[in-house]
């Protein structure tokens, strides 16, 4: 029984779909909640689409991780704007293909669908962040 939790999260994991609180405008990602984490209401939630480019708000560089991770590995808190109006979602995400020395608060990052881990050999894909390819030209 390896699939149920990842199957239910595919819209968030693979398409950056988030939910917006109808009362206060808070954008929840990736959790699909009943009660708004910010205003405590039980609102009507609207599905919103996040953009694949955002801004680093904060980050840490992890140096001691299990063997399957490539270290040093930056982990960032990224603000991803919605398509259209509304607040951005504040998202936690791993980096990939990015030297920790290249990461800074305020930098623009791009989300790419990558293998996050596997369950019994079945890859589970989700977004990781990286320095945009166009910035390397």
């Amino acid at each position, binding site marked *: 029984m390896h699939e149920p939790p990842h199957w239910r999260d*595919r819209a968030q994991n*693979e*398409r950056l779909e988030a939910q917006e609180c109808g009362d206060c405008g808070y954008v929840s990602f990736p959790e699909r909640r009943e009660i708004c984490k910010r205003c405590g209401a039980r609102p009507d939630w609207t599905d919103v689409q996040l953009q*694949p480019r955002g801004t680093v708000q904060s980050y840490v560089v992890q140096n001691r991780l299990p063997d399957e991770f*490539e270290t040093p590995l930056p982990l960032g808190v990224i603000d991803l704007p919605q398509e259209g109006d509304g607040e951005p979602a504040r998202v936690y995400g791993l980096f*990939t*293909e990015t030297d920790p020395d290249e990461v800074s608060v305020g930098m623009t990052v791009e989300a*790419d*669908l*990558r*293998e*996050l881990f*596997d369950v019994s*050999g*079945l*890859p589970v*894909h989700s977004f*990781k962040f990286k320095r945009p*390819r*166009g910035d*390397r*030209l």
Partner: protein
Amino acid sequence: MVRIRGWGSYLPLYRIERTAIADQHGGYAGGGEVAVPAHDEGVVGLGVSAAENALEHAGVDGADLDAVYAASTSDPFDERGIAPHVAVAVDAEGPVRVTDCQGSARAATNAVLAARDTVDAGRAETVLVVGTDARRADAGTAEEQTAGAGAGALVLGTDGDAGAIESAATNTTGFVGRFQRAGESPLPGDGRFNRARYVEAVTGAIATLDVSPDHAALPAPDGGWGDRALSAAEIDAEVHSTFDAVGDAGAASVLIDAAYALETASPGDTLLLATFGPGGSDAVELSRGEAATPEMDVADYLDSKEYVTYAKHRAYREEGGEA
């Protein structure tokens, strides 16, 4: 006529020079380099990146797709598929036909022609075709120096100003040549013999088309084969190849090279694509429309790169190849 609404490509960031591979094992070093998938980058992720670029170029929402075709020679799974996962990731869910074409680098044109026929038959208005590969090759084999990775995609439809599929021909020979058992390293066979069969198969496909293209993309398992086929077919066209920078990316190569050619071509130019793999060859004639090129084109992906060591390239290739 079936139109091209948009195209897109994606190449991994990492590269290794063929001399760096030869230095590890001795022997002959081919010129150029190959693209190496990252440790977390497999055929699904590569395909999704190219698909997103193509959909953006076409101005099409994934939710409006009627069908998704995926072609690959390096799917690590016998049972899972690639097409449905690319489809879902670009928001094409529900009544969306999905088809995986595999078993030969020619699978890319199997997919393109199946997609064309679906649109032509009125069964679909907008379809996505993706070729995605992360070729496997054991350490120390000659194929390690040519095993590339990347993805290319086309959005086809009943309208579109990026281009059109003008004509196509196919030449099924049953010849195998290079082959690869599931999960193992490829066995190349006799290079000269295979190259002669390649030229026969490709010229046989081209011969039934009455074309004098301005541009050509004829990817093959080794460099220079396409030039020989064009010369044998007496076609004088500008050849576009990523072999020296990416390597042989299997079923992805023809769609990457097609994108490269479309990005160089002028409106009104014609392009000849030809594929080859176990089973035979397909030739497809495209025309270039008025649309501008994608935001990130093949040249951008070729230029934005980072070299990795031999050891890292081995680890990345093996881990990425499992995804």
